[in-house]
């Protein structure tokens, strides 16, 4: 079969295409020749096409069981259902690299659409994206080529790792990888503009790309935690594992970034700070890719060590060093006339928010690399567990939450502290009363109450603002249809703010869920013989029996529980564990029952010969708020980024 050689050839041709593109665009910029610029863009478009062809080729290789390709032999088998080809494609180093380069080629395609040819900020940005793309393609075609020929052709492939056969695996890795890769877009936009000596960079374009990247990263994080929660069996959703951290850190910095570019847009400030942030974000995103690909930090996640990891590390340091040199070189373009005038002002609070997010990112980074540091000094392999991060980051996250409920409602430039307090004190008191009432009803912990205070404080202010707008529309038009029309028109003209409100509310819901599970979660082990029952809070569960089934490639041990809540029977539920002898790996499936906000979670840890089993039983209050909240965050952000191009270039008065 020709898939291997075809794919290999097409990848290398696409590399050639991109090399031409970067040469052409350099000539076009240097000699102000639009023909070369256009030619470079066409080359990039064709590069996208070629990479798509190579992707399809690899897929065909899987579907046709072409074991002359080493990668196909390593990650699939004759009996693997076709649908798993999607997972098999990116589950290994080589395939995931091809996936990333293809994604980047599509992003580049979208980026250069409809952009003016003589806009050098775009052209320089194009150049920087190409640099990254070429690096990725060279790594792929030379160091980790998915089309490498197998040294001997096997009759049947290795099969796919059973731990990966979960619906979470269908969505989390591709989204996460896409997100990390996408960070190069806002990075290139900023650096590109500076190269073109245009410090009034195209903020609209930057905002769209920064927000879109952030949305993808958010979805990746949420999917990852949710997947871990359902599959790992310990009932938690975040363990501060090095790979988890490596996807969190870029997200944290991008969150800071999307807010501080707002300050640049509205007040023409923070230009240097924004450059620093996006360099740091890109650095972290590359760090994420590095740790994923076999860095020196052990984790449950790693793809497996390879020299590829160190190549990424090298590129990361080179790109960051050049960026910082550039920062110094172009510094005089980055100063502002405007300054932060008062501590209580929107730009000041956004700066505080930035500092807080960065602090969490840096502390997490320090914790993640601390074991590596100690290993090189004292040759001891230590481990920094989640307790450290929980303890240290929690207060900072609390401060962030509080700022979130204050900043959107504080004016730009300056605000008077006593008039602010006068205006908000009543809202605050009402929020506290509502929170106490709410907490009393759900028997909430102190920190749940505090989260509720912040949630209500923010929500009431949002409600008041919307109400005022509605009332103003009402005063202008008496007809209800016109009032609604006017109201929606005003919302539509400021989608970024109102979308932001939705996202903020979503984040507060997530925080509430985290507070609930962290402080009100209950966990206990039960050693039960078949027929025995246990009780935890208002749940009663009886261990019925264990079914052991031998499948052709794994042994499945399924325990059945009869569950009752508040005396009422809910039926039988199962938790299972599968052992795959070929891979010497276990995969668990926990039993999760959801009751609105709360989850009843149980998984088996040990089964003895007499069929007695040890169960970990956990009650996670408010956990559903985390997933719901994340969804709300994404919806809000999508609304916020929605193209309202016509209004953007004009300052407006309604």
């Amino acid at each position: 079969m020709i898939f291997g050689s075809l794919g290999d050839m097409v990848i290398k041709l696409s590399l050639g295409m991109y090399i031409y593109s970067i040469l052409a665009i350099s000539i076009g910029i240097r000699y102000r020749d639009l023909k070369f610029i256009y030619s470079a863009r066409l080359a990039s478009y064709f590069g996208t096409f070629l990479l798509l062809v190579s992707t399809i080729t690899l897929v065909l290789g899987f579907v046709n069981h072409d074991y002359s390709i080493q990668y196909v032999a390593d990650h699939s088998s004759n009996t693997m259902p076709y649908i798993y080809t999607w997972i098999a494609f990116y589950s290994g180093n080589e395939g995931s690299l091809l996936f990333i380069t293809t994604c980047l080629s599509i992003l580049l395609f979208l980026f250069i659409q409809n952009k003016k040819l003589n806009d050098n900020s775009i052209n320089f940005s194009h150049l920087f994206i190409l640099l990254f793309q070429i690096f990725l393609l060279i790594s792929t075609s030379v160091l980790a080529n998915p089309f490498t020929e197998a040294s001997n052709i096997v009759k049947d492939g290795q099969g796919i790792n059973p731990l990966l056969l979960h619906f979470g695996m269908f969505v989390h890795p591709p989204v996460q990888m896409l997100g990390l890769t996408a960070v190069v877009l806002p990075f290139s936009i900023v650096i590109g503009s500076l190269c073109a000596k245009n410090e009034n960079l195209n903020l609209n374009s930057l905002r769209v790309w920064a927000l879109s990247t952030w949305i993808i990263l958010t979805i990746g994080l949420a999917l990852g935690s949710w997947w871990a929660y359902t599959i790992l069996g310990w009932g938690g959703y975040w363990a501060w594992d090095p790979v988890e951290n490596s996807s969190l850190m870029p997200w944290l910095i991008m969150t800071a970034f999307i807010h501080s570019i707002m300050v640049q847009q509205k007040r023409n400030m923070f230009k240097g700070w924004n450059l620093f942030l996006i360099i740091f974000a890109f650095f972290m995103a590359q760090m994420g890719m590095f740790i994923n690909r076999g860095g020196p930090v052990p984790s449950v996640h790693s793809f497996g060590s390879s020299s590829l990891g160190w190549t990424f590390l090298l590129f990361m340091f080179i790109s960051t060093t050049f960026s910082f040199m550039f920062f110094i070189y172009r510094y005089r373009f980055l100063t502002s006339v405007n300054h932060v005038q008062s501590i209580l002002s929107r730009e000041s609070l956004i700066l505080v928010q930035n500092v807080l997010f960065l602090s969490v990112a840096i502390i997490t980074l320090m914790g993640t690399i601390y074991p590596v540091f100690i290993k090189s000094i004292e040759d001891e392999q230590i481990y920094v567990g989640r307790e450290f991060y929980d303890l240290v980051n929690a207060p900072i996250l609390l401060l962030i939450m509080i700022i979130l409920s204050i900043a959107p409602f504080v004016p730009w430039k300056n605000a008077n502290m006593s008039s602010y307090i006068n205006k908000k004190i009543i809202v605050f008191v009402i929020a506290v009363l509502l929170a106490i009432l709410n907490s009393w009803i759900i028997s909430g912990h102190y920190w749940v109450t505090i989260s509720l205070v912040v949630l209500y404080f923010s929500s009431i202010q949002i409600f008041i603002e919307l109400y005022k707008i509605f009332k103003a529309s009402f005063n202008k038009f008496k007809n209800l249809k016109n009032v609604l029309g006017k109201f929606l028109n005003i919302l539509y003209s400021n989608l970024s703010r109102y979308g932001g409100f939705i996202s903020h509310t979503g984040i507060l819901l997530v925080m509430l869920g985290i507070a609930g599970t962290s402080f009100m979660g209950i966990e206990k082990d039960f050693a039960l013989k078949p027929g025995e029952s246990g009780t935890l809070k208002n749940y009663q569960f009886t261990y019925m029996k264990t079914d052991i089934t031998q499948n052709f490639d794994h042994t499945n041990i399924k325990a059945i529980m009869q569950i009752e809540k508040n005396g009422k029977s809910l039926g039988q539920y199962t938790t299972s564990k599968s052992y795959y002898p070929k891979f010497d790996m276990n995969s668990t499936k926990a039993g999760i029952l959801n009751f609105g906000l709360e989850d009843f979670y149980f998984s088996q840890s040990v089964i003895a010969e007499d069929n007695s089993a040890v169960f970990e039983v956990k009650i996670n209050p408010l956990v559903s708020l985390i997933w719901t909240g994340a969804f709300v965050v994404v919806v809000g952000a999508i609304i916020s980024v929605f193209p309202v191009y016509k209004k953007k270039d004009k300052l407006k008065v309604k």
Partner: protein
Amino acid sequence: MNNYFICLFIIVISLTGCFYNIDNDLSANEIRFLNLEKQIKCPICPAETIAESNTKVSKDLKDFIKLKIDEGWSDDKIKSFLISKYGKEILATPQKKGSDLFLWIIPIVVLLFGVFIYWSLYRTIRFRTKGEQS
């Protein structure tokens, strides 16, 4: 007037209730165990505490800890015993003394640095503006 509101603020915040009592559902020993199991690393796993891991080794360690808690051992005594048997690497949360104190100082340093960053951005720009506007 300002002071009045600040006092009100403080009083109201401190009144936000705690309606939740974990003692209703778990005994003191069980609570201690939950805290302790997060602090012990699973010896054979690459990056998990015994709380997260479902290996047999972890289970045995968990049983051991539960036993010793019931026997009246203090948290420190349990941890020291485990360190003597497995080495310092058994601890998942670095101790707040010795060389690991460095890790605990980092957050404080970072936050102080953050304040410094905020203040510099606040002051530097202000300083430069004064020069330009006159």
